[in-house]
């Protein structure tokens, strides 16, 4: 039994009777015990996982109906609610919060008999790109533990990459699924805004964020999207995808398709190893029959400033609910006046969240909104028009997922603008609502490089076809564990 199998291979193996669910889950738990002390992918591990696996084996033995995941261990970012499970957002503010309900994505996976193996680490409230802002310490990149795994869904990427789960869920507000997928050499998808329900995802910037699947292969990612996508009465922004099957025809290829290389995303600020990997990816696309041309989107230069202005504003409002009165940690009410109590308890937010909240109060405020928030919204509108006209000319837009290679812990921690620019290639898909996928493509000195493909809204099916075609050209090493 090999823990590095894909989700689809797992399903076949269980169906063939190669091993039981209990055997696989037990081996996964042993592996977590062995490596997670070092990698810290998980904030909590499901203590009932083995019992749940046994139950599912019993169900199979009794020939009862079983869902399509057949007990597959899936890791869940700790900002997605799993009923009766701690959901901390990697914050001291929510260290004791136990979710009273399942997020829609969890309910849908549960119905298909997925097994939630644990909750994964993230930057506090998903604000960051390295997991260094987790209140419980960072996750480590399994390819080299001196390097950051990317973020904010760093724990979810590490869990899949280091064989601590078969697949995982992350959330992507400005690249938080795609960035760690790229840094840890796995596949990560940010779906079209509205394709996946956000009900039960703890909000950070709700107008642009999406839950996204993370897995070892493009097919696994499509398999998960089949389960979690579609309309949900609990999230009014969801779109009906009419039960689209993203796995069907995934091997259709990209012969005759047109690909635009976003020139702003391969220019200055791009590491030379990343540049050369991108060129190589483009020649692979051409060898598969696609035609590549350069496309320029003027507004991209302002996208990061627009992104941080909008997300901080929404965070300021979304995180106003943390007053420690309804959920939070133990802190006696006696002897405090209302506002001073709240201000005192909000000290439990970590430094990055605190800074974003201050910015979130500042940029939309009466005296400054015209210069910052409204400008940011105008950039977002213009960028959306630009990308829409690009998709009239080409089928896909391509760029490196992250302009730079994974870097060492602490390297960028003290430079907020350097941190901002890590998101340069990913925020556009969020601001414009388009689907985007990161595909592991190459290694440079033992560090992974991912290629990002963006498609037009609701074109996930063809996006997966392009991603699968690119993936088929690669031959990547095994993670050194």
């Amino acid at each position, binding site marked *: 039994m090999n823990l590095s199998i894909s989700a689809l291979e797992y399903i076949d193996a269980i169906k063939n009777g190669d091993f039981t669910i209990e055997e696989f889950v037990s081996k996964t738990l042993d592996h977590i015990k062995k490596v997670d002390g070092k990698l810290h992918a998980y904030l909590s591990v499901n203590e009932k996982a083995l019992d749940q696996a046994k139950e599912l084996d019993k169900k199979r033995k009794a020939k009862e109906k079983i869902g399509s995941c057949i007990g597959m261990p899936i890791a869940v970012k700790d900002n997605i609610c799993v009923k009766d499970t701690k959901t901390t957002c990697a914050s001291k503010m929510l260290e004791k919060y*136990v979710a*009273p309900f399942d997020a829609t994505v969890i309910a849908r996976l549960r119905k298909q008999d997925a097994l939630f193996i644990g909750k994964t680490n993230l930057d506090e409230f998903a604000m960051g790109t390295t997991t260094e802002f987790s209140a419980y310490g960072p996750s480590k990149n399994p390819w080299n533990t001196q390097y950051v795994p990317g973020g904010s869904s760093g724990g979810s990427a590490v869990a899949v990459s280091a064989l601590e789960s078969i697949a995982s869920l992350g959330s992507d507000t400005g690249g938080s699924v795609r960035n760690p997928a790229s840094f840890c050499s796995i596949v990560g998808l940010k779906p079209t805004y509205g394709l996946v329900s956000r009900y039960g995802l703890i909000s950070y910037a709700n*107008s642009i964020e999406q839950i996204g699947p993370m897995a070892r292969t493009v097919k696994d990612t499509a398999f998960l999207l089949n389960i979690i996508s579609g309309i949900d*009465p*609990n999230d*009014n*922004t969801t779109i009906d995808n009419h039960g689209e099957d993203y796995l069907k025809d995934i091997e259709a290829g990209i012969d005759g398709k047109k690909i635009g290389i976003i020139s702003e995303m391969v220019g200055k600020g791009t590491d030379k190893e990343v540049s050369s990997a991108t060129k190589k990816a483009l020649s692979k696309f051409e060898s598969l029959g696609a035609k590549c041309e350069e496309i320029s989107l003027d*507004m991209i*230069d*302002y996208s990061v*400033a*627009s992104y*941080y*202005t909008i997300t901080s504003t929404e965070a*300021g409002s979304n995180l106003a609910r943390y*007053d420690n*009165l*309804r*959920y939070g940690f*133990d802190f006696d*009410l006696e002897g*405090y*006046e*209302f*506002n*001073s*109590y*709240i*201000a*005192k308890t*909000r*000290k439990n*937010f970590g*430094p990055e969240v*605190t*800074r974003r*909240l*201050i*910015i*979130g*109060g*500042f*940029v939309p*405020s009466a005296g400054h909104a015209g*210069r*910052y928030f*409204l*400008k*940011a*919204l*105008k*950039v*977002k*509108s*213009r960028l*959306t028009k630009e990308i829409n006209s690009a998709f009239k000319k080409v089928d896909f837009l391509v760029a490196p997922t992250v302009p730079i290679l994974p870097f060492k812990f602490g390297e960028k921690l003290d430079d*907020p*603008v350097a941190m*901002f620019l890590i998101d340069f290639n990913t925020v556009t898909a969020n601001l414009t609502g388009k689907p985007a996928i990161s595909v592991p493509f190459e290694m440079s000195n033992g560090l992974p490089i991912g290629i990002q493909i963006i498609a037009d809204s609701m074109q996930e099916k063809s996006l997966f076809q392009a991603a699968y075609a690119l993936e088929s050209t690669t031959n990547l090493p095994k993670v050194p564990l």
Partner: protein
Amino acid sequence: MVSKEEIEHVAKLMKIDLDDHAVHIDRVQKMIEYFDILDKAATESEEIIVNEQPLENLREDKYEPYKDKLIDKLKHYKEKFVRAPKMV
């Protein structure tokens, strides 16, 4: 250029206690300064697109009782009220 006083004022409005957080003000100032790049974007004539949801897309306005008593999960409550610190 955004002054530190302005930032401190906003921090108070956001109910953030600055005793421990004064150290962040410099960094917040740097972050906001980066946003000045927005001045260069030629978007004056741009209209802001907002996502409007037609009412018929919303779910039916029907009361669906929640099966658990959620208030039981709170630490400080009395009957159906959340307990909060004194307002004055």
